[in-house]
């Protein structure tokens, strides 16, 4: 144990001595959080929505048919009441709900105006805005059609409600994304480089000849980065609460526990890369291309996964950041509890265990 502490102390010295590493470690998350405010527009296709039709009359049916016919929406089910709505949104799959009030057609015919409620999941604000705009224009179309043959103008007013993020702040979307990105970068790249560096300089040989167990070498490498990453999580959360005015809706301890799990996932990835490579450059390239890019592309943080070809959608499932992103979004923005994210947690846990086993196995072979 004392040997282990000696080693961990040495690893901390390495990190603290290296100004460049320190900058990446602590500067990057801050810089990213601050510059990632740009809204990313993206076209939305085949978004899953639900319909609650209290009216069940001609007008509501016609509008539903129109919506269904558009390529933007896919009505997954019609719900009987608004009670089921909340549950549907919590699953995260449903992006929008359309509610027709009772007597919709009657209202429209007799009072010449009626309302439709449109509720969107605004934890992804760009998506929510796009979807509500689409639906409003479909309704507008229908309205125009009615008015063609009518002396009196009919008016259908969509009443839009943004769920989870009523002000449509951009931050909710990118804070969890940046968290995934930063942790991925810090943990995977830094760990990989720090282990490979020992190989390059020849100190690894000395460590292997010493009575210090190889597995302990790896573990003591991981400890400082685990702690430093926790500091990063704290600083990102502080920034998002105090600078971006984005409160944390859910349980902060759950958020920390999930982040720790993800950090461990990343550390094992880093260890895996370091076992397979011999130079710092290779380790860095693999970390950047192999880890960072998939995080950007397939976590759902920048590009909606639903719009990708099926093959890529499948691929996204093996990207750990995707699951972490879903979890953080759920806890941080929607305020969900563990009972809603346990599946994602389990998947992340599975990936971690799998990576740990294969990297430890190949590490032994290398000796």
């Amino acid at each position, binding site marked *: 144990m*004392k040997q282990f502490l000696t080693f961990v102390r040495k690893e901390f010295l390495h990190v603290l001595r290296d100004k460049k590493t320190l900058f990446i470690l602590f500067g990057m998350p801050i810089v990213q959080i601050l510059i990632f405010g740009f809204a990313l527009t993206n076209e939305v296709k085949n978004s899953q929505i639900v319909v609650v039709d209290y009216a069940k009359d001609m007008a509501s049916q016609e509008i539903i048919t129109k919506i269904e016919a558009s390529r933007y929406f896919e009505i997954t089910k019609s719900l009987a009441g608004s009670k089921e709505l909340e549950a549907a949104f919590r699953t995260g799959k449903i992006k929008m709900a359309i509610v027709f009030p009772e007597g919709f057609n009657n209202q429209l015919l007799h009072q010449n105006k009626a309302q439709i409620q449109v509720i969107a999941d605004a934890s992804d604000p760009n998506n929510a805005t796009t979807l509500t705009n689409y639906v409003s224009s479909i309704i507008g179309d229908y309205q125009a059609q009615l008015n063609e043959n009518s002396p009196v103008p009919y008016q259908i007013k969509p009443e839009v409600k943004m769920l989870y993020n009523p002000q449509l702040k951009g931050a909710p979307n990118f804070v969890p994304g940046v968290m995934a990105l930063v942790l991925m970068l810090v943990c995977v790249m830094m760990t990989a480089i720090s282990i490979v560096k020992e190989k390059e300089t*020849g100190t690894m040989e000395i460590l292997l000849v010493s009575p210090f167990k190889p597995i302990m070498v790896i573990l003591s490498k991981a400890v400082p980065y685990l702690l430093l990453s926790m500091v990063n999580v704290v600083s990102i959360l502080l920034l998002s609460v105090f600078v971006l005015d984005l409160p944390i809706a859910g349980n902060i301890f759950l958020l920390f526990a999930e982040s720790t799990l993800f950090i461990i996932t990343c550390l094992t990835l880093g260890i895996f890369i370091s076992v397979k490579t011999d130079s710092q450059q290779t380790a860095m390239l693999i970390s950047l291309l192999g880890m960072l890019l998939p995080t950007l592309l397939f976590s759902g943080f920048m590009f909606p996964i639903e719009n990708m070809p099926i093959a890529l959608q499948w691929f996204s499932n093996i990207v750990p950041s995707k699951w972490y992103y879903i979890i953080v979004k759920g806890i941080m923005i929607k305020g969900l509890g563990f009972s809603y994210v346990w599946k994602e947690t389990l998947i992340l846990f599975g990936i971690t265990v799998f990576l740990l086993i294969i990297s430890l196995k190949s590490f032994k072979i290398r000796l």
Partner: protein
Amino acid sequence: MNEKVISCNALTKRFGDFTAVDSITFDVQKGEIFGFLGANGAGKTTAMRMLCGLSIPTSGEATIAGFNVYKETEKIKKSIGYMSQKFSLYDDLTVQENITFFAGIYGLSDKAIKENSAALLKQLGMVDQANKRVGSLPLGWKQKLAFSTAIIHQPEIVFLDEPTGGVDPVTRRQFWDLIYEASGNGITIFVTTHYMDEAEYCNRVSIMVDGRVEALDTPTNLKKQFKVATMDEVFYHLAREAKRGE
């Protein structure tokens, strides 16, 4: 002075069809400076890895400091020191931090670390440099520091893998003074080198060719045996027979 600290008997390592080390047999006495020579690819590194407990032999027997290379690798690791040609210190740590770290992973107590490192710094005349980063030291100093660090836990044997690669002749000479001193203190030195003048400094020298030990004796006897004037010629005489390339 007749205690065997390294004893190999028909030690062999195969990788598939390739026999990297082919049945080598030799003993090294306590306090001896044993030169382990051979061209690149002759199997030196593989042999050394087996002796250090890093690689399990395919067949044959060997004991290091009385411990079996098959079963007692952990005990072997505690009884040996190791230094490679890269000097293997951490450039971004200070001299003192390096010493403390390496002493620490060998499980030395805080008190022992303090005492040993103070003595070491004094011996090397580096007391004033204790808090300087190793990266800022001249190569020769680094090398001496690396050697002293490799024996800070007072091992029975120290393995030196081409310890003087890339170092100027004066520094090399000074380095050998350290080696003699360690040997005088009863530490056995097992050294590989490509410098034949260094081979002359060894008590005994073995020369490996194609995985086998082709010659083993004192430098004087070897020169007599091959009827040549220098170790350089002895080495050349044996190594040109080699069939393996690099």
